[in-house]
């Protein structure tokens, strides 16, 4: 187990290093220069600005400085928000994104698990077809389409909830959370249905029936736990989907979160912020996948002793 974790950690650092390097050099080839937004400046003013952001030095030197700062956890200074460090920007915008993501995750997986169980226990009935169709919708309809529709009907037409922004407390978070939750909901519903059906056909469920267990005990005491364990493995893709979703959902609902900032930094050619956010997202996903793998080993008694997943 320790050896396995060690190996995984080395890979994680290697991956992060590659992403950082690739991001840095890709940024240099970007067609638009960040200085473009300073068009009105004259030669000497530009030189001052370039010096200030350290982009007057040769590329390898810039790279060395960047990596050195990165090692210290410093993501550099934003080109657009004057004088603000990327770290500060991320910290300020972390909270809304985190709240939305967490709410979507909890709501999506809980409802998804229930729907999946319902489908599996009432296989080939109206409930099964209904929840399966719902899951297909959730997987198929792009988050930005769903978010737009929610915003149009529930906020603009019926005025039930705020159209957007982050200034109405919890109410502001409901619609964007629901929009984000569709992905995890659909994924876990489908996953749990397949797993449950397989578990329900297994010998130990027949044995549980032979012991006299009733439908409730079979579903919750015997089947659910065994179906839930593999669900952990979809958390990685779910997290990736949440980030993708957050870019558009935060945009649509004008939420001051990291996703919204990432999109606007792309629009304004804010190199430092693009790089910083890219690294942040990558690190987040890599850590989630790592935790998922470790967690899987911990909660499945079959792997717990034999040590590590191969």
């Amino acid at each position: 187990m320790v050896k396995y974790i060690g190996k995984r950690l080395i890979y994680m650092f290697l991956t992060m290093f590659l992403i950082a390097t690739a991001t840095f050099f890709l940024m240099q080839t970007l067609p638009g220069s960040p200085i473009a937004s300073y068009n009105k400046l004259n030669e000497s003013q530009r030189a001052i600005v370039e010096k200030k952001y350290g982009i007057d030095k040769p590329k390898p030197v810039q790279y060395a400085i960047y990596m050195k700062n990165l090692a210290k956890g410093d993501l550099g200074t934003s080109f657009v928000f004057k004088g603000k460090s990327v770290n500060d920007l991320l910290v300020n915008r972390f909270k809304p994104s985190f709240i939305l993501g967490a709410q979507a995750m909890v709501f999506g997986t809980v409802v998804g698990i229930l729907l999946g169980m319902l489908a599996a226990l009432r296989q080939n009935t109206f409930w099964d077809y209904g929840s399966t169709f719902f899951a297909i919708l959730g997987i198929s309809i792009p988050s930005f389409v769903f978010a737009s529709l929610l915003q149009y009907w529930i906020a603009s037409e019926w005025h039930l909830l705020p159209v957007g922004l982050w200034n109405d407390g919890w109410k502001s978070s409901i619609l964007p959370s629901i929009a984000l939750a569709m992905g995890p909901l659909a994924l876990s519903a489908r996953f749990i249905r397949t797993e449950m059906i397989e578990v329900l056909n297994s010998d130990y469920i027949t044995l549980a029936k032979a012991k006299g267990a009733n439908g409730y005990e079979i579903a919750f005491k015997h089947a659910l736990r065994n179906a839930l364990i593999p669900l952990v493995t979809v958390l990685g893709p779910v997290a990736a989907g949440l980030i993708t979703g957050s870019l558009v959902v935060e945009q649509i609902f004008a939420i001051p979160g990291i996703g919204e900032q990432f999109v606007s930094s792309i629009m304004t050619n804010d190199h430092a912020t693009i790089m910083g956010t890219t690294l942040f997202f990558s690190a987040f996903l890599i850590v989630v996948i790592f935790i998922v793998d470790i967690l899987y080993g911990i909660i499945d008694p079959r792997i717990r002793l034999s040590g590590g997943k191969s």
Partner: protein
Amino acid sequence: MEKILQVIDLELSFHTFAGEVKAIRGVSFDLHKGETLAIVGESGSGKSVTTKSIMRLLPETSSEFKNGEILFDGKDLTSLPESGMQKIRGKDISMIFQDPMTSLNPTMPIGKQVMEPILKHQKVSKAKAKEVAIELLKMVGIPNAEVRYKMYPHQFSGGQRQRIVIAIALACNPKILIADEPTTALDVTIQAQILELMKDIQKKVDTSIIFITHDLGVVANVADRVAVMYGGRIVEVGTVDEIFYNPQHPYTWGLLSSMPSLDLEEERLYAIPGTPPDLLNPPVGDAFALRSEYALKIDLEQAPPMFQVSDTHYAATWLLHPNAPKVEPPATIIERMKTFRGSRYYEGTDGNLGGEA
């Protein structure tokens, strides 16, 4: 002897995409108190389905009782509501499955799994149930049961897991224990241990056992009576001696001839030709006729009734009809019959009592 379970003319079908599979086509047998009844037959003969239908463990959506009754304790199990069945399962009738590697819940400690039927069917405290469970684990030969109680199934070997499954089955002192090929998936040495264990336990708790197997060696070892199934029907039933030493049905002859033996000097092992019948379109008449070298014309037209051979011995073959020609069973079967008092080939001194009906 007291009849504890009566299966009368049971017919059961599965509804599949391909059509109706007539898995059981009129099965009748009795189970007496304290006896071990072995049901033998090839895969697909309906032996497993018969016992699963007694427990009503077949999927309700795709299986259907077409006819017949299963009488237990004054009730017909085919028409009992599910809640009533739940009170019987694990308490009065319990079951051991074929593959111990998959029949325990992998994410639940084994102690909890043994406790479950006790808590379910008896009004006892958790502490008491735990005590009973540990007792049971000790009885089936799990060493160090107090410690291993908390362990998960994957931490046990196949033989030990089957012992645990047996402990679960015995938890409420069932009147009937159904063992569905309990030793098939185990190593030969472990098989013998499990069989010994089951015999021991039967003496201790005085339960009736239905033992399903395709292994005639196991049958000889454990059974009091034997029912031979073929194509969804019982073709021959009798005491273990009657079936082994005075078999009447050509299928039983085939089964016994294909059993390797050290006593008889055979050049090569006999194999029954052909494959079991397709129960989607079951053959008319005697289902075995198509694979039998003793087939009669009538076999292809009409299913044979049960002919009585002795008080305890019945066989469904037209060969026992008074009009049927006398046929010579295979040589190895004649060898067997020579030792059986009452068979027509008996060579002992008690005189031939006449084997044919």
